């Protein structure tokens, strides 16, 4: 009696096991292609798996893999579509959170900062993810890094406790960065001082000298009652060099800041070990 029962069970579920085997094989094949960084074919095979997987067993995982593969190929919009599908097909809060974070990470990468912050805020306000606050802050910090807001990034990483490395890096970058507004303001009062502030001493001296010369000649012309000459020198020479000095101080500051930021981003790209967008 017992053996008949087992035979029946085998006949009933045997084919099911067999068919699952085919899908599992396909899943492993697609995963292998993904691991070999053959993203195009991996997407094809995951899509094939999804198409034939009538049980929906692989929906979430395959959608996630397709999203990852599209992301690796910088097809960000497609990646978001598949991460959103993964979000829809998530079976538990963990998967749901992971899918939402993946969408945020793509938004960080493609610098759609407002969208990333909006999604992070909605995650932060979602009571289901109270235990994930630290991770939410972590990605918020990264959002600010990509938005070039290092001070905010540093403050946000401070809330994650565990990420001292990123917090310190952001603090360092924020301190090292020059203030464009400050450089321009001091250049308004003392031409060339903005260049001095960014360490471009030669340019600062030249700027100061030219402005001094044309300023002197213009003022002298006005004092000597040569009003027309005064206007001409002021308009065509002094103001020209004065504006050039303001522009220069802005350009030098931005150039310096770019170098500082690029150095930090290079570190993050090649040497930082933690999770990255």
């Amino acid at each position, binding site marked *: 009696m017992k053996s008949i029962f087992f035979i029946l069970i085998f006949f*009933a579920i045997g*084919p099911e096991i067999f068919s699952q085997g*085919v*899908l599992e094989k396909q899943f492993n094949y697609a995963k292998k292609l993904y691991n070999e960084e053959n993203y195009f074919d991996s997407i094809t095979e995951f*899509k*094939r798996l999804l198409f034939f997987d009538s049980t929906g067993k692989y929906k979430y995982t395959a959608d996630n893999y397709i999203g990852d593969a599209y992301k690796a190929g910088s097809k960000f919009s497609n990646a978001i579509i598949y991460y959103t599908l993964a979000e829809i097909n998530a079976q538990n809060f963990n998967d749901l959170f992971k899918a939402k974070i993946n969408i945020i990470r793509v938004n960080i990468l493609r610098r759609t900062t407002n969208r990333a912050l909006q999604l992070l805020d909605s995650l932060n306000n979602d009571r289901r993810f109270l235990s994930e606050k630290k991770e939410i802050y972590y990605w918020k910090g990264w959002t600010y890094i990509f938005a070039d807001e290092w001070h905010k990034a540093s403050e946000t990483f401070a809330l994650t406790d565990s990420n001292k490395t990123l917090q310190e890096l952001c603090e360092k970058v924020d301190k090292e960065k020059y203030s464009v507004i400050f450089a321009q303001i001091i250049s308004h009062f003392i031409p060339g001082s903005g260049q001095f502030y960014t360490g471009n001493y030669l340019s600062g001296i030249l700027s100061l000298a030219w402005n001094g010369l044309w300023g002197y000649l213009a003022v002298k012309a006005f004092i000597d009652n040569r009003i*027309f000459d005064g206007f001409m020198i002021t308009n065509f020479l002094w103001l020209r060099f004065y504006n050039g000095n303001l522009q220069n101080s802005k350009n030098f500051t931005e150039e310096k800041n770019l170098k500082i930021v690029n150095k930090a981003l290079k570190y993050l790209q090649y040497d930082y070990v933690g999770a990255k967008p």
Partner: protein
Amino acid sequence: MNKILFLLIIFSTISFSQESNSAKSLNLFSPQNIKKFADYLFCQHDYIRASIEYEDFLKSGYNDTAAFKVGMANLEMGNFSIASKKFSNISKISVFYNISKLEYLRANFRTGNFNYYRNLYESENLNRDYKYFFEARELYNFSYLFSDITLPQKKNFLSSFTKEEQPRLNQFYDWKINPPYKNPVTAALLSTVIPGLGKIYTQNYSDGIFAFITVGLLGYLAYSDFHANHNFRGWLFSALGAGFYGGNIYGSAASAQIYNAKISFQFFNDLKNYLEDHNYFVPLINFCK
């Protein structure tokens, strides 16, 4: 008890036969499943993958629908020469033969080599027996608007289009015959007479007014300086004024050229949009109902 066992056996047998069939069909790489998957990709607008899958499927034997859809996928991807080749290979006995010929012409039209396209169309010697004769002729006549060859008489040109299409085509025809270009020589001459007028002629109003004021002011300064015997300043402003005056003449001619390029771009853009809206006069086949 025996009854229960009997029912279980019947149930499991049915279950077995059903599942084994589904298991059999779960050969993901069987030709039929490849085609099913390709159809799915095609409807998802993933044309590159759809085309690869259809090509794979076609290795198992010729199928005109798949062959036609490879052409369509390539057309959608902008691979016009490949699409053209695929459409030209559709068998004469296929139900897609007639539409393929039309798609073949469209693919060649879309390469942008209109002379080649026109020669191709003429070599086809299409007559009224051809199912899509009128659609093909519409696209052929439309190609006149893209090329530099002489347009036919308006009546002949418009006759190939439907009554609904004619008013817009009439506008395109008029534009092509008499484009609202601005003449660079006229613009330069106008600015020679009155500085800035050439720019106003090319609808560059702010530049025109600025040029008029600048040249006028410099001329006045030169005149008043000469008048007051300030010869150096007089020459200085004369030179500056002359520079602005000459520059404005040259700028007016350039402005006319820019104006012409802009409206020409707008015209060809309108033509392209019109064609897109009308699917290049090709009847739509919906494979994804």
